[in-house]
């Protein structure tokens, strides 16, 4: 133990990290019946780290290119020692990360944690959610299998519906008029360089804000605690909350391992651009609610093309959602109930449409 202490002291003399971690030692986490929702952000972060690590390992063997991508993933799944595990964990973790990111967003919404002064935390978190969906969209194409190929084709086609900038945007995404090997290489670039860079910067910013502003407390509880300060209960972030978070990470690791071992991620059939799209092709589950909505919009609404209306509608909703904290009344006045109502509706809509999209033929 003395050796460990010596090393720590040696490092501290040079890095002065005691000053650096001092705020962490003082940091507390409010303790109440909804405290467990605080774990979601941490679990999402853990899954992101898993993604980075497994992604780096996959990069050792993955080769981007229409003629090599599928074969290289097949090689990873069959020949590389524990390649199946790494790829399956990467795929499952990606899906779980998107799920926990959505759950985190809704928990923040319901607990009203986005209110002043945490508007920027919300905005950075929302941008991170969009980036995570971008990770999903770009990564889905990389194995270059039939489903991924046609899902990308449909997805980029929808992007092309945006007036004025849609077509150039679609050509930029595809690297040409059609989904080809050029699309694959640029999606690979987005997936392993552009998006991780942006996401890492934003995650640091997001965590910095969380650290600076502390954990939010639901308004009603905040009011109770203000009225009766003796009722306020807290837990030290380190080690008490951090150890609990660590337990959550271990559970997530167990779930990931079980999913990867019992349901290894399917490889599918190599994409063939010259065959017709399989019947009933659908995007990944996290895009399903939007896809199904677009399918249900009539071809013409008044004089506007239905699909364009849908795409513009989702764009506008996304923008308004991003700016949601700015519609909220300032603390400590009475929070606006319509935002909670809207959140309930959004959750029901996203869940309902996703299930409908999954069951629809």
């Amino acid at each position, binding site marked *: 133990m003395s050796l460990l202490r010596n090393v720590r002291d040696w490092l501290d003399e040079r890095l002065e990290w005691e000053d650096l971690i001092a705020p962490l030692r003082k940091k507390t986490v409010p303790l109440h019946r909804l405290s467990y929702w605080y774990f979601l952000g941490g679990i999402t972060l853990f899954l992101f780290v898993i993604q980075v690590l497994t992604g780096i390992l996959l990069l050792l063997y993955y080769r981007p290119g229409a003629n090599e991508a599928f074969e290289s993933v*097949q090689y990873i*799944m*069959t020949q590389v020692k524990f390649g*199946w*595990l790494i790829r399956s964990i990467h795929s499952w973790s990606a899906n779980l990360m998107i799920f926990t990111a959505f759950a985190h967003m809704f928990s923040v919404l319901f607990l009203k944690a986005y209110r002043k002064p945490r508007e920027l935390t919300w905005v950075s978190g929302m941008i991170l959610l969009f980036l995570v969906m971008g990770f999903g969209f770009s990564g889905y194409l990389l194995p270059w299998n039939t489903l991924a190929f046609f899902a990308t084709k449909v997805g980029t086609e929808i992007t092309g519906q945006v007036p004025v900038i849609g077509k150039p945007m679609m050509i930029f995404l595809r690297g040409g008029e059609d989904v080809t090997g050029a699309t694959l290489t640029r999606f690979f670039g987005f997936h392993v360089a552009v998006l991780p860079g942006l996401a890492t910067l934003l995650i640091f910013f997001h965590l910095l804000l969380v650290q600076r502003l502390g954990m939010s407390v639901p308004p009603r509880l905040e009011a109770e605690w203000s009225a009766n300060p003796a009722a306020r209960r807290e837990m030290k972030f380190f*080690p*008490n909350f951090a*150890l*609990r978070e*660590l*337990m959550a990470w*271990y*559970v997530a*690791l*167990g779930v990931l*391992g*079980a999913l990867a*071992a*019992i*349901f*290894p991620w*399917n*490889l599918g059939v190599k994409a063939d651009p010259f065959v017709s799209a399989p019947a009933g092709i659908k995007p990944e589950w996290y895009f399903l609610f939007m896809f199904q909505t677009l399918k249900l919009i009539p071809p013409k609404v008044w004089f506007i093309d239905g699909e364009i209306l849908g795409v513009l509608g989702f764009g506008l909703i996304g923008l308004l959602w991003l700016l949601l904290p700015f519609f909220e009344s300032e603390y400590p006045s009475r929070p606006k109930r319509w935002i909670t109502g809207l959140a309930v509706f959004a959750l029901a809509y996203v869940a309902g449409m996703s299930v409908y999209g999954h069951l629809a033929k």
Partner: protein
Amino acid sequence: MAIWQNRKQIVISRGFIPEKSAFLRSPRTTDSSRLKPVGMTKARSASAARLFSLAALLLLGTLAFAQTKNSCLDCHSALPDPLGVTAEKFSQDIHAQKGLTCVSCHGGDPASDDPDQAMSPKKGWKGKIDRKQIPQLCGSCHSDPAYMRQFNPSLRTDQLSQYHTSVHGQRFAAGDTKVAVCTDCHSVHDIRAPGDPNSTVNPVNVATTCSRCHADASYMSSYKIPTNQFAEYSKSVHHDALAVRGDLSAPTCTTCHGNHGATPPGVDKVQNVCSNCHTFQAQMYEKSTHKKAFDAANLPGCVVCHSNHGIRHPTDAMLSAGPDAVCMRCHTPGDACDRARAGILSDLTQLDEAIKSTDRVLAVAESSGMEVSEARLAQDQARDSLTKARVTIHSFRTDLVDQDIQAGLKVAAKNLQAGKQAMVERNYRRFGLAISLIAIGLVLVGLRLYIKQIES
């Protein structure tokens, strides 16, 4: 639109089509001048051409009314069968679509409302075409390459000469008018191109068309030939392929018998007919001992084992000693051929079973999420070997069949090994998972106890 020089009528058509009723009129001229629109060759300047075009348009506008007048259909659309022909029915006819009218075959003057004028022999009216005249009437156009080229340059023009060589044609020439003539198969007044799914001679409909006579026992009674061909064919593998699977390359009556030159293939020619599609089987049979034996006994090759119209999907049971056995119809139980038959059957069964059991293992591995697509793909090689062995049977040589069987067994064994390895790997993964989950569980318990300790 065009005005044709050698006609009393003005024909206004989409396709610059000459009226043709050669059978009813003077001998045809096929020189190119017939096909040239009046005046166009004389046009010397652009302004003259414009003036002419304007005049022609005015003239044609006036004459269009006269052209659309078709007193034949006016009356016959109101008449009952067999004289009834509606405009709707006739519009389906390929000839009508190409610009031919009633006059083309029947003559007469459709511009006249007076029946006596319209159906006046002086106007070339021939009335109902005598059955004896039908092949010659159709042939007057369809045997003329220069004429037919205008409509379809790739269409054959030897139908009539082929018909003369057919059983139908020969009997017809001998005065038997019960046999099929053109209109019996192609219908009349609503003749469609063979590619039209509703055509009576579309591959899908040919068997039904032939059966209208050949399955009619009373109609065929004077010919003393069987009438069960259609019933047998309807149960055959060829019918399944054509009618059920929609494979238009599958054979129907005309594929083996010919169409216009229809005749039964002779006993010694059956093999040539089948070999058009079943090439490898025919090549092997050609070199086999059976070929010599069948020829010597004047047996009809392929038909001996597979029958003719009612060819069923061949199964390995044909090699058995059971009810579907074909070998034992000729061979004696226990002889060398019987032993060879049993050996081949045993080999085929062995490979078939090996493929099926490998498929089962691979399916379980795949449903467990294991990547066995390569082995799944390689199974096709084993199946190919089995198919090849079944084809090689037509050589009637056990050594050649055995070569294919062994090749297939080798591939199936390799794939089975891949499947078993995948299952071992699956179990290894699950064991590893169990160990990992236990380790994670222990860490969780440890963490919980530690938290309890520091918070107490």
